[in-house]
């Protein structure tokens, strides 16, 4: 009897330990980046490294003062917000159509949307670079946002599809019988219910654009986004600049995962069906 409880206890310990270990595996590298960001440039380039941050804002100040860095940060935000707006405003109607209507070609459409993810999409930035020069969209936030939208759109459609599917059509039908048109039923009944979910998928689109580096580096020259700027200066920039830049890139990610954690799993579950 004691042997059984012993092995069970050992198993329990092993389980808790491996969960802890895997959490540490994720957090410790992030912690190292934090130490480097909150250290003075001298400490970042010294050896050996301290394992506790000294809370010196020198590196971040250097980052803020570096030629072009704040502009790149602003560009990143502008492109990401544009991507968010475009992808939700054209993706959400399609998600609604998929969840509410049976129409011919629905399955084909859904498959095509999924299949766009099977292409290395940043590659398509190469021909678009030429095309954009002809149309005057080159090196603009709008041009890059359009390319980032192709990356975000499959997610926008599939996530809004699963969100709308989660709202019973009976609610809408009840609104119709009470005198609403299709449109007012949508704005008065469905929209308030769906808004947090839409916000979550909008944040998802924001982060996809925020993180994208290849297309951004190909399509922008003067108006670089932060990842493109960091990539371009990777070879010559000092260590503390890289770490501060990396940290600024990571912060929205932490907030994003926290904000959408409720929706993260729901949206993938239905998208797979």
């Amino acid at each position, binding site marked *: 009897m004691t042997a059984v409880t012993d092995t069970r206890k050992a198993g329990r310990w092993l389980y808790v330990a491996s969960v802890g270990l895997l959490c540490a595996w994720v957090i410790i590298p992030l912690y190292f980046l934090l130490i480097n960001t909150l250290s003075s440039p001298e400490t970042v380039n010294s050896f050996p490294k301290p394992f506790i941050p000294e809370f010196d804002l020198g590196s971040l100040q250097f980052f803020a003062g570096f030629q072009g860095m704040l502009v790149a940060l602003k560009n990143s935000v502008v492109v990401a917000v544009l991507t968010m707006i475009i992808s939700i405003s054209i993706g959400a109607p*399609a998600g609604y159509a998929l969840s509410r209507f049976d129409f011919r070609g629905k399955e084909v459409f859904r498959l095509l949307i999924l299949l766009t993810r*099977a292409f290395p999409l940043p590659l398509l930035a190469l021909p678009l670079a030429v095309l954009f020069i002809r149309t005057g969209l080159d090196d603009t936030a709008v041009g890059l946002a359009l390319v980032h939208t192709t990356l975000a759109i499959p997610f926008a459609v599939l996530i809004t599809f699963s969100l709308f599917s989660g709202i019973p059509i009976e609610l809408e039908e009840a609104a119709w019988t009470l005198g609403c048109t299709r449109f007012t039923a949508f704005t008065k009944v469905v929209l308030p219910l769906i808004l947090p979910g839409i916000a979550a998928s909008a944040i998802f689109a924001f982060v996809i654009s925020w993180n994208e580096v290849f297309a951004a580096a190909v399509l922008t020259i003067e108006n670089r986004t932060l990842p493109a700027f960091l990539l371009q200066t990777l070879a010559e920039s000092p260590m503390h600049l890289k770490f501060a830049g990396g940290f600024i890139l990571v912060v929205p990610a932490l907030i994003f995962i926290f904000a959408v954690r409720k929706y993260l799993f729901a949206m993938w579950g239905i998208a797979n069906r």
Partner: protein
Amino acid sequence: MNARLLPYLLILPVTLFLCVFFLYPFILVAQQAFSNGGEASLQNFRDVIGYWKFPISLRNTFLLAIIVVPIQLALSLLMATMVSKMKKGRDLVLYVWTIPLGISDLAAGIIWLAIFEQSGFLNSMLAGVGAVDAPVNFLSYQNTFIVFLAIMLAEIWRATAIMLVIIVAGIGLIPKEYYEAAEVFGASPWKRFVKITLPLLRPSLQTALILRVVLAFEVFAVVAALGGTLFPVLMGEIYSYQFDLQNGGNAAALALIVLGISLAFTLIILRALRVPKGATI
């Protein structure tokens, strides 16, 4: 409004958008790749394949994908099963494990650079325990294996989360009754995993593997941050064709090759993990 036309009207914007920004550029890439000085030719492909860096970058990209993806699959399956039995703290653990999902490949490369660079944390730790006297320059051409290891770890660290999310969501869709029935018949946890979880998880595994494999062939910024030119990969070569060599034709040809590899793997995964017709959960 006509209810028959409404759904088509609603999907019209996406369809138009994808035609202009997905289909059209795709045709342009193909055109550019297959033409040389205005006429159709395979010269671009011959140039690209004949270049001395091509076999190396192809080998590196494949090697990375072949090692990283199975480890990520195993790790995410393990994490998902661990989470599925968890009673306390499930949300917190899942939050921590999915953090890398939002982190870009460039940032991940920079994070692991903080560990592997010459005055980085690995060297500090090794010096702390007295394993080395002076900091070792890990990311140099003398230590190509460590460069590879650092890139591999960064990739595993960063991109396991996307598979984890898809698999956790997929496990959530499997009805609990199957497990209860299996338990009644005395199936061990391992048997339940192999006979219930894995087969019923096929659609999720499909999605997860396709996404992951396509992204694995797109590996670029992690390598740029950690290896620079020490570890050439296909995507990095495309970048240097476009910028350093200013050769759009060659860049397009190599892009098509990457596209072909990604599509081939997508088809293999779809075929290998196909769900039998009519079988649903």
